[in-house]
């Protein structure tokens, strides 16, 4: 089993710029989203992407087949028009004209139906594949250990699940996947044009290189302009947000003019970036249009020369008017995919970068290590033993220096100490959010690292200060994470703690939906719900981080009596903040600077006159002084 080695602190904790160390960590690769590989189209990446698309491959294949079919139908329509011009219109011969019309109608309808289906199928495949990817990625994130989160900014991870997957989606919807179809179209066009009239075809292609160069070059500038614009926009929005939030302050300190000046500068920069983007975009569309018209002119001029030459030499003209017409319209079809090519390449590039970042994150195997043969002892009595426990957060100083103590089954122990004394760390180590770096923690005689993690967390019930309420009813929240608990058990547990009195104010009682972030409950009531949640699971060991926040006196009393009910008959380890709780415990552990400095009952410790006495006096004497006035 790998033991975490201390590494440098996460960048956001020190406030320094991203200088994440590339240290190896417990055998797992360090996740660094910024590294980019040289090639944008690694087969490895494409293979992994394909594994998500694979279940929907029939959609993709059918869509591509339809794409080629519809492209063909599009070309065929102009070919039919050429036929109409050469056979029926120029000689004014209407025999069989109806057949041409019928064919045109049929082909255009096929194109319409085919394209509809093609777009839909491709997008459906994309959406399905990306939903799967998103779900997998979220599952993966859930499994990653706490140490991973200590050194990875959340904002970046959110970006993986949202904007990076968006970049992949763009690949499906902007037609990058249809590049294959475009390619077939171009090859087909080149072939047919050459067959129709090789000489004219070669002349028609003269403009193509210019088009490619011009569009690639202008698009590069468009892209750059947009990048500048995006960064300036976010700067402007950040400035605005901050000043709208702090406007009272701006006014109170008479900084209105200064703020306007600052905003003016940002605003001007934004405008300049926007005008820049507009300029390059206008240029791009104008150049493309112009080159397309140039090609038309070129075909007309050269085609005209060919016809005139044939007529002059008395030969029957090889080039018909219909073919001339066909060349012009087909070449227009030719332009569209070529103009889009550089755009599609950009989309593809950013999709590959996104895919690379996503899969790199998926490759992080920084999970809580679980032994293959992990088994929990059959008997759960609730005996706890901390044995020389040592711990330091990544890159930080040691927060626990060999802490040892034992808790008998059913014993209630309070842990007190100033902020930073390491008492919350005890809780995190017991539930294996982190693993000890020295010593061991044993539950019922077995090292917690040898338990299956899920079973450990079931046996050690935790009640935290910050109550996490999900959408759903109160009842749903009572058996959160344990759907197997029947309604009546959950409700009975809640009633024992007096929650019935609180839900009585709702028409639907326990079936009342919880508002977002539990806004329809006071903080004390939310605490009570979390007590009831723990009671419903009935774990042998209960760890409780008592709330520091003030609640009104009535709720306070309710909470205190609920707490007594909750810990009755269980082993309880309470990070205590209230004197009443501390007094009621069998034993008090006093932590200071990561060491267990005193332990005993309240009156014993007071009599001792040590660290506990000091803590106690600091709060209590002040109250006494104020009371005297």
């Amino acid at each position, binding site marked *: 089993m790998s033991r975490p080695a201390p590494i440098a602190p996460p960048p956001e904790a020190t406030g320094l710029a991203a200088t994440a160390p590339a240290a190896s960590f417990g055998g797992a690769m360090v996740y660094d989203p910024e590294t980019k590989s040289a090639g944008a189209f690694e087969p490895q990446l494409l293979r992994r992407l394909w594994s998500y698309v694979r279940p929907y491959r029939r959609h993709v294949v059918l869509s591509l087949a339809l794409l080629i079919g519809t492209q063909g139908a599009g070309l065929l329509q102009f070919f039919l028009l050429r036929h109409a011009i050469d056979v029926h219109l120029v000689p004014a011969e209407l025999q069989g004209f109806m057949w041409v019309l019928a064919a*045109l109608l049929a082909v255009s309808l096929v*194109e*319409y139906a085919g394209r509809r289906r093609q777009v839909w199928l491709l997008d459906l495949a994309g959406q399905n594949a990306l939903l799967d990817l998103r779900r997998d990625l979220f599952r993966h994130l859930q499994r990653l250990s706490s140490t991973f989160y200590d050194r990875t900014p959340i904002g970046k991870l959110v970006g993986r699940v949202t904007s990076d997957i968006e970049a992949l989606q763009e690949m499906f*919807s902007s037609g990058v996947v249809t590049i294959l179809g475009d390619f077939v179209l171009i090859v087909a066009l080149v072939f047919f044009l050459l067959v129709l009239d090789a000489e004219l075809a070669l002349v028609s292609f003269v403009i193509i290189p210019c088009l490619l160069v011009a569009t690639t070059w202008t698009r590069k500038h468009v892209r750059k302009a947009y990048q500048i614009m995006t960064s300036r926009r976010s700067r402007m929005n950040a400035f605005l947000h901050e000043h709208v939030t702090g406007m009272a302050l701006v006014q109170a300190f008479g900084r209105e003019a200064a703020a306007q000046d600052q905003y003016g500068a940002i605003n001007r920069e934004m405008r300049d970036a926007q005008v820049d983007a507009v300029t390059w975009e*206008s240029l791009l569309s*104008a150049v493309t249009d112009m080159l397309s018209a140039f090609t038309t002119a070129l075909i007309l001029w050269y085609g005209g020369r060919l016809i*005139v030459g044939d007529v002059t030499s008395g030969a029957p003209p090889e080039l018909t008017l219909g073919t001339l017409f066909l060349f012009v319209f087909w070449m227009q079809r030719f332009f569209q995919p070529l103009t889009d090519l550089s755009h599609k390449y950009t989309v593809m590039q950013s999709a590959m970068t996104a895919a690379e970042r996503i899969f790199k994150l998926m490759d992080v195997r920084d999970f809580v290590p679980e032994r293959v043969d992990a088994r929990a002892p059959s008997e759960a009595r609730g005996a706890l033993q901390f044995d020389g426990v040592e711990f330091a957060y990544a890159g930080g100083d040691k927060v626990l220096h060999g802490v040892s103590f034992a808790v008998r089954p059913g014993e209630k122990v309070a842990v007190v100490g100033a902020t930073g004394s390491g008492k919350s760390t005890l809780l995190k180590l017991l539930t294996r959010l982190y693993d000890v770096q020295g010593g061991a923690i044993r539950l019922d005689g077995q090292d917690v690292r040898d338990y299956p993690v899920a079973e450990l967390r079931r046996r050690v019930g935790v009640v935290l200060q910050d109550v996490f309420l999900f959408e759903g009813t109160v009842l749903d929240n009572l058996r959160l994470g344990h759907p197997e608990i029947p309604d009546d058990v959950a409700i009975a547990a809640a009633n024992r703690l007096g929650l019935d009195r609180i839900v009585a104010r709702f028409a639907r009682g326990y079936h009342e939906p919880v508002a977002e972030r539990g806004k329809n409950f006071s903080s004390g009531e939310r605490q009570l719900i979390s007590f009831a949640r723990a009671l419903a699971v009935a774990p042998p060991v209960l760890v409780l981080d008592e709330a520091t926040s003030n609640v009104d006196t009535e709720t306070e009393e309710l909470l205190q009596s609920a707490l007594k009910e909750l810990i009755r008959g269980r082993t309880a380890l309470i990070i205590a903040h209230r004197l009443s709780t*501390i007094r009621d415990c069998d034993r008090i552990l006093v932590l200071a600077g990561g060491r267990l400095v005193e332990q005993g009952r309240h009156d014993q410790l007071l009599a001792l006159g040590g660290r506990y006495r000091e803590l106690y006096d*600091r*709060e209590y004497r002040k109250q006494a002084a104020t009371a005297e006035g």
Partner: protein
Amino acid sequence: MRHRPLLELLPYYRRYRRAYALGSIFLVGTIALRLVIPWLFGDAMDDLRGLESADSGDGKSSAAARAGRLVAINAAIIAGSALVGAVLRTASRLHILGTSRRVVHDLREDLFAKLTRLAPSYFLRTNTGQIMSRAVNDMNNVQGLTGPVFMYIAETALLFAIGLGVMLTIDPAVTLWAVAPFPFFIWRARSLAKVIQEGSRAAQDSLGTVSDKVAESLAGQLVIKTLGLEGPDFERFAVHAAEYRRLNLEVTTARARLMPLMSWLAALAIMLALVAAAPRIHAGTLTPGEFVSLIFYLQMLAAPVATLGFVISSLERGEAALVRIFEVVHAQEGLPERPEHLRPDSMQGELEVRNLSVWREPAPTADGAPAPAPRRVLCDVSFKVPAGTTLGIVGHTGSGKSTLVAVLARQLEVDEGRVFVDGRDITHLSPIWLRRHIGLVPQDPFLFSATLSENVALGVRDATPERIQTAVKIARLDVDLPQLPAGLDTVVGERGVNLSGGQRQRAALARAVLLEPKILILDDTLSAVDRHTCDAILSALEPVMAGRTTLVVAHRISTVAHCDQVLLLEEGRVVERGTHRQLLAHGGRYAQLFEAQAREPDRIEPADETDSADRVTAPSGQEATP
């Protein structure tokens, strides 16, 4: 006729009328040149067709030579007009679209200037998100109205007007046949565009929700893991992710209809033209070249139909956005500075409140239900604070403490009754002058994304480093400096280091101390600072407070026990007043409150969250707890 919000933009348009006019002229030129090309092409084809029917012999060669020349000339004109057209097109876009960005720039400038002038009460009524939505989203939507939308409409209208004109002169019957299906397709494009745009917006919102859920889950991952909530948390995420997929597919359905439909329009129009043209070509009233020109034109006309639907949507959205922006621009400036306002040279700091009442308008409801009547939050409050003394104000949350403070700091309007500073009615005094002499330290202070020392020196531009140091020391912020990466030069705020609540409160206190105000108001300022530090700050403040009027607002009585006089507020009324001793002796509500607070003293440790490394935190937004 309903009020046209577009009229509001007239002054902005007018500023750039030259650019718009030039742009429009270039636009007409661009379209005209584009429409020349099909005609020239058709004409050239007819020239070439003439050759085939011409007699053989010398006549034929000379006819061929002439036709060759004509075709070459036409081709040259096509190339020439494409070149000039490209130049004109770029010029017209630069003039119209570039100007549109300038207009929006001006509009943003005006909106921000207005925001700096709006009274604090406006910001209390309207939340930041709403204002940001005006300044960002609505502004984006308005951008269309300042050029792109009208340019697109004008372009399409010109194309149809000139194009149809030319087509009708070529052959009215064929033209009318061919364009007959256009109205139906325009209508269909419009309705599909609506579905796509509304759907995209819904999908965008949904993605925002997904993003929020992920951030929330990751921020709360310690809690989720400890409580074994991975399952429900995943379900919660999965529901939103699936909803996002559903909305996206809804958009796809409409998109998959719109695009093929529009290319079918071109095919259909050409087929109709073919049907109508065949007998006429047969009869000799229409040449094949002319017919090819018509096909060219039909393709040109069919292209913008799909986009037209989107343009109409942006027009509507832009107008709605404009209305919302101008609601802000025309909002009443609560406490404007007036020339007749008094600006005395100095302030003594004597404060008197006589029969003050304040009403608060309830926040506007989202569903547009009739707003409930304004609530009276302060009711007939009277008191007097001699210059240089201290007044404590205690009361529960919602008792009106903060409203009272906001009125005294001239952030909220005096609704009824009067407030005097140095015997002068504050409504006769300049609000800016008043704010300059009143230092308010709010409970939840705001720090800009700037260095800590810039934040402290916010109101005093010429503050020396020594003075900043002193202020920082008085506020006991100096002890925290070694923890910060760059001490006083550390960038704090949203884009910098996140300070704890207590640190922010002390920074705000230092800011007010540096200002040396005549009246200092501490609005529950030290609530997030631990007792020990709080006492140290209060004693360090004593020399600063000497000679200043100080108002201390608190919900804990111990904080105001040393004040010269204390007010107890309940539901907007002063229920008790006197010194701490007097009020205790009186045995009323104050004494009861004191008893109750004394009974819950058993918090055995400081609540200052300077060390967050040792706490398990529930999802609370962006801040991660390492």
